[in-house]
C-alpha cells in the first residue's frame, strides 16, 4: 500500500474497489496488446473491443469456466442461427431469438452446475455472462458475412488473444507497477501513437506475400 500513487490511494480511500482501479489501469495495456496483435503481427480476431472485454470477463469467471461458456455460447448461437435460417426472419428479431436461446442455455448450465455442486460456475456474476452472450452477435454477423469457417477461425483467434490478455492482466507485478506509476498510461499513449503512424508490413504479411516477394518482378 505504501508504494501506491497518491491519486490512486485517494480514489481507493473514497470507496472505489481496488480491483476496479487496477482493471481500469490495465485496460490500456490490454488494448495495446490487441493493437500490436493487429497492426504488427496481423492477427485479425473480432476487432479490438471484443477480445479485450472477453479477457476482462475471463478474470471474473476464471479461465476454465470462461472458455467453457465462450464455446457453449458460440455453439448454441450457431445452432440457433442454422435452425432459424429457413424461416427468413428480419435481422433484429432473429438475433433476439438467438440471444434468448443462449440465455436459456446458460440458465440450464447454471442449474446443472448447481446440481453437481460446481460452485465456481454458480458464483459467476451477471456482467461477464452478458459480455459473453453479446459477443455472439458479433460472431453471427461474421458468420453471415464471411461464412462459418471464417467465423470459427476468427473466434479461435479471439479466444487466443483473450487468453493471452487474461494472463497479462493476471500478472500481479504488472498490476502493482500500474498502481504505483499510473503515468505509464501516457507512455502507452505515445507508444500507440507511434504504432498509429507505422506503415511497415505486418509479420503475417511477410508470410502472406512470400510468393510476391520471391517473384519480385516489380
Amino acid at each position, binding site marked *: 500500500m505504501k508504494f501506491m500513487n497518491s491519486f490512486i490511494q485517494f480514489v481507493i480511500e473514497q470507496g472505489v474497489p481496488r480491483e476496479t482501479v487496477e482493471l481500469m489501469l490495465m485496460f490500456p495495456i490490454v488494448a495495446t496488446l490487441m493493437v500490436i496483435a493487429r497492426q504488427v503481427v496481423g492477427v485479425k480476431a473480432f476487432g479490438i473491443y471484443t477480445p479485450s472485454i472477453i479477457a476482462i470477463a475471463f478474470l471474473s469467471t476464471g479461465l476454465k469456466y470462461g472458455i467453457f461458456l465462450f464455446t457453449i455460447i458460440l455453439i448454441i448461437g450457431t445452432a440457433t442461427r442454422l435452425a432459424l435460417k429457413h424461416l*427468413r426472419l428480419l*435481422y433484429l428479431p432473429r438475433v433476439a431469438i438467438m440471444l434468448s436461446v443462449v440465455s436459456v442455455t446458460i440458465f440450464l448450465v447454471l442449474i446443472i452446475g448447481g446440481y453437481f455442486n460446481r460452485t465456481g460456475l454458480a458464483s459467476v456474476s451477471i456482467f461477464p455472462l452478458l459480455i459473453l452472450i453479446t459477443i455472439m452477435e458479433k460472431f453471427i454477423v461474421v458468420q453471415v458475412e*464471411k461464412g462459418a469457417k471464417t467465423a*470459427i477461425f476468427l473466434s479461435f483467434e479471439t479466444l487466443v488473444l483473450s487468453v493471452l490478455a487474461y494472463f497479462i492482466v493476471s500478472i500481479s507485478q504488472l498490476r502493482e507497477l500500474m498502481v504505483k506509476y499510473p503515468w505509464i498510461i501516457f507512455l502507452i499513449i505515445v507508444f500507440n501513437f507511434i504504432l498509429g503512424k507505422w*506503415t511497415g*508490413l505486418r509479420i503475417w504479411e511477410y508470410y502472406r506475400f512470400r*510468393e510476391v*516477394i520471391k517473384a519480385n518482378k516489380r
Partner: protein
Amino acid sequence: MLNYLKFSKDVLGMNSRNLDYIRSFNKKRAKETADHKLNSKKILKKNGLKVPDLIGKIETFKDVENFDWEKLPKSFVLKPNRGLGGEGIMVVYGKKKNGNWVKSDRQEVSIQDLKNHILNILEGNYSISGVVDSAFFEERVKILKLFKQYSYRGIPDIRVIVFNNTPVMAMLRLPTKESGGRANLHLGGICVGIDLNTGVTTTAITRNLATQQEFLIDQIPFTRLSLSGISMPCWKEILEMSVKAQQVTGIGFLGVDIMVDRDKGPVIAELNARPGLAIQIANLAALKYRLKKVEGLKINTVKKGVRVGRDLFGGEIEEDIEDMTGKKVIGIFEKVTLKNIKSGVSKEENAKIDTGAFSTSISTDLAKKMGYDEVVKIFDSYDSKAQIRLTLEQAKKLTRELKEKYLDKYDVLTNILIVKSSNGITVRPKIKIKIYIENEIIDSHATVHDRKDLKYKVIIGRQDLKNLIVDPSRIKRKNL
C-alpha cells in the same frame, strides 16, 4: 534473407495502404462517392462512362409498399446502395409463369421475398457500418461467351487499380461454385492476374475459406481449364474507362470493377476506394513499387496514363512464358541478322515472322548482296526465259536438270523446288543461311524469292521458329 527484407519493401501492406494511400489520396467526399453506389453510377453516367442501367430504387419503407413489382423485368440485380464486399446482392435471371423470379442459385423468389430482402437492406444490415441504406435494381449484365466456361453462375469482373491517372495493376475475378456464384475472393472466388500491356491473364489464386489464406492455382478447381493466357476483350477500352473513372470521381487510390456485357461492352459495375491487396499475389507483383513509380509523374490525359501504365508494368507474361518453356517470345515483326557463312557477309534486316509459311524466304536482291549472286543468277536467267509460263511437267523436268547440274557444284545451294503461286509455277533455289533472332541462332535453308513488290525482304517461316514463341500482340516492341 537480406534480399527478402529488401524486396518486401516493394509490397503494399495493410498499414501502408490505409495510411499512405487511402488516408492521403482518398478524401472523405471521394470515398463517399465510391461507397454510395447510386451516386457513383450517376457521376459516371453523366461523364459518358458506361454503367449497368438503373431500373428502379427504393429509399424508404413507403417506397417498398408503393413499388410496382410487376414492372420489374425478367432478369435484374438487386443491390444495397452502400453494400460492402458484395454482401446483400441478389441476382435474378428469370421469371416463372407463377410470377416468381429465379435467383442465380436456382431458388425461387416471390415478391414477398424481395420485400423482405429490401427491408433488410433498408435497415442497414448489409451496409458499411450498419447505417440505414437504400436499395436499387439494375439491369443484369449479360455474360460474354468467352467468360462463360470460366465462371460459375455469376459474372466475372475485371479489377483495375488506378493511381495518378495511371492503371497500375489489374486482375480478373471469377465467380466459382465455392463462392456461390460471386466473384469476391473472401467468399472463395478466383483472382487471376492480368498483364497490363497485353490484357492476357498470368497467374491465379484463390483462398482457403477458413484461414482466408491465398494460394496459387493453375486451373479452375475440379476442371482442367487453364487460367493463364486468357485474353481480355476490349482491353484498351477497359484501361481508358478506369482512368477516366478516376478523373471524374477524384478518388486518388481507386479500384475500378468492370464487367463486359455481351451487347454493351465494358461497363463499370462498381468503384472501390479501399481496394484489397491480394491483387499482388494474383499478379506476383509488388504494388507499392508500382505506386511509387507513377507517383509524381505528370499525366494529364487518359491516353497518356494508359500508355504509361502499359509500358511500365506490361510484359510480365513474356518473361513468364520464357521461364516456363525456355523459349523466347517474339513479335510479328522483328529485327534479324542474316549471315552467309561461305562469304562471311552479314546483314541486319526487318523480318516478318509468318507462322503461316513453312519455310523461310528472302528476296533475290538481298541474296545477291549477301554473296549468293552466282546461284541466284542461274535462276534469274531461267526466270526471264520463262516469260511463257511453265507447266508442272516442264517445271519438274527443269528441276531435275538443275539439281543434277548445280547441287553438287555450289555448297550453299541445298535444294531446288517448284513453287506454285498466283503468278504461275517457278523454280526456286534453297540456300544455306544463318539467322540470328534475339539470342537464337538458326541454321536455315531459305528459299530465294523475287520479292520486289513486297515490304519485307525476309520472311521467317515456322520451320525456323521451333525454339521461339510468336505473340501477335507484340508488334515492333523493340523499335518503339
